[in-house]
């Protein structure tokens, strides 16, 4: 295996007594797309900031590109591209200018930055917006511009903190497509998300984080195999009845989760579970058989849903 580009060992970040990150360890290989999946407040962004060499760790070990962020902050940052959770583009400058000033921060010559800026505007599909004001862009366009800005130095690792949060479905798909291209080109991606579909789309491997600790680690499919069944039957009986019904169907499938609005029955074959429910004389208002997802993995590991 090639030398990992990120090595975190028992990484801790404390704010006074509260441990936002409480001893997490992981490694990311070059070219790998690695995800931190967890609900809001799980410690994902804090981990990202430590890897991004802008937040000093409280304890543990961290090496990014073989360097210690405490000693080589600017050096590490020179090889990173960072897409923060909230856009921090300079709204006082125009679209292309944002790329120009940012490229200079990496000590790149003006001509090279200008060339790179034009390439990236094309990549981000923002060529005709080059002279626009940043505030005139849609949310999706701003995200793409932020990604373009993060790529100005041709980074070894791209850090993406909740890249598609707050975007509409179409904008998300455009963004995923761009990120997928980067992945194909061999850029190492480290991303946080609380969207399971995003993690499944983009991550080769991921860790599930909750309350600052890692709950599980693996490839999305492997995690689903380990922690969930192949299929899930979702049935709704109405919020008042779900709990009562759950008692009646106890023992069906591999496992049952009762959520406030629905019951999940984990099974290798969802259809046959549905047949058994109907045979038991119960009539759900709605029923749905779907494949297990990372959401189910998370539910299994923490007893909570990702988006609450």
């Amino acid at each position, binding site marked *: 295996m090639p030398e990992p580009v990120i090595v975190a060992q028992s990484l801790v970040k404390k704010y006074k007594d509260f441990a936002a990150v409480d001893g997490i360890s992981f490694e990311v290989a070059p070219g790998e797309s690695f995800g931190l999946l967890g609900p809001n407040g799980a410690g994902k962004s804090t981990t990202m900031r430590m890897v991004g060499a*802008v937040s000093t760790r409280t304890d543990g070990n961290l090496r990014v590109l*073989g360097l210690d962020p405490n000693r*080589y*902050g600017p050096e590490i940052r*020179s090889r990173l591209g960072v897409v923060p959770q909230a856009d921090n583009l300079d709204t006082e400058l125009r679209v292309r200018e944002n790329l120009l000033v*940012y490229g200079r921060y990496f000590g790149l010559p003006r001509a090279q930055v200008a060339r790179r800026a034009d390439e990236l505007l094309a990549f981000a599909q923002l060529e005709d917006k080059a002279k626009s004001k940043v505030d005139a862009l849609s949310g999706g366009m701003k995200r793409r511009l932020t990604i373009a800005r993060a790529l100005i130095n041709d980074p070894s690792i791209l850090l993406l903190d909740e890249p598609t949060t707050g975007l509409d479905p179409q904008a998300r798909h455009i963004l995923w497509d761009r990120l997928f291209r980067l992945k194909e080109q061999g850029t190492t991606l480290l991303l946080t998300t609380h969207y399971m579909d995003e993690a499944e789309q983009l991550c080769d491997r991921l860790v599930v984080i909750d309350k600052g600790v890692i709950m599980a680690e693996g490839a999305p499919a492997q995690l689903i195999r380990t922690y969930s069944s192949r299929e899930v039957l979702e049935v709704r009986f109405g919020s008042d009845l779900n709990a009562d019904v759950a008692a009646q169907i106890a023992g069906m499938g591999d496992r049952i989760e009762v959520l406030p609005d629905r019951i999940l029955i984990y099974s290798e074959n969802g259809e046959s579970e549905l047949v058994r429910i109907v045979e038991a004389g119960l009539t759900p208002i709605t029923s749905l058989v779907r494949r297990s997802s990372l959401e189910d993995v998370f539910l299994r590991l923490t007893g909570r849903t990702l988006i609450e």
Partner: protein
Amino acid sequence: MSTDRESTAQSARGQTETAPLPGSVGDRAIRSTRRTRRWGSWYVAEHRFRVMRSYAQTVTVTAIGNPIIYLYAMGVGLATLVDANLGADAVGGVSYLAFVAPALLASAAIAVASEEFTYPIMLGFKWNPVFFGMNASPIRPGQIINGIVISVAVRMFVTCGIFYAFMLLFGAVPSGAGFIAVFVALLTGLGFGTLLMAYTATLTDDTGQLAMVMRFVILPMTLFSGTFFPLGVLPIWLQWIGWISPLWHGTELARVFAYGASEPLWLSVLHVLYLTVLLAVGWAAARRITARRLNK
């Protein structure tokens, strides 16, 4: 003034830090960051100049309009009254225009400082958090502050230079060494401004603090710093405002160069020292506060 976290942070828990192998990614990163380590402050200044260009009109209009308005109102209008009633050289031994002009010059620098070291700082930390964006690049927090100081110093210098040109035009500078007053004004503006910047950097919310500073610090300072009348005219229990005011120190020193105002040498030296100390303390504090604030 190197208080950035990179330099103060200890290598983690006493483990031995080995230099990356030649040719490795880490080694390449170290080499490619040398330029930013050296020139980062100027890159930030470059960014700020671009931003200033977006409000270049305001900058130009104030830089040219202010001297005309103030020199005319105070140096010509008010001066007619003063000179007619008190005699042509009653205040400071020179015409009222010559007396008030260096003070207005120093005030112009303070005006630039109070504009550039307040809301743009608040903006960079909070409203449009570009400082966090810069901090994610190889730029260090201290370099962000340096870059801002550099860019504001340039704007201030140009503004004061234009002001001085108008002073010459109005015939307000009897002394040949008057141009040195431009540098005095610059030192005054930056001495006060860096402190103001350090204060603004501590604000997480603007609940009117900056407006209060304008009203209860900058305005009284402008009025009671020997600007329009000598400080000695005030009752002794009000004169302390002048003694601690960077504007008073700057104005008095500017007068020495503009028309040879007589004051003991030690006092002139004290003016320079006082302003330099303010500048150093404000600048260092701003760097410290920024480094701490960006390292979340």
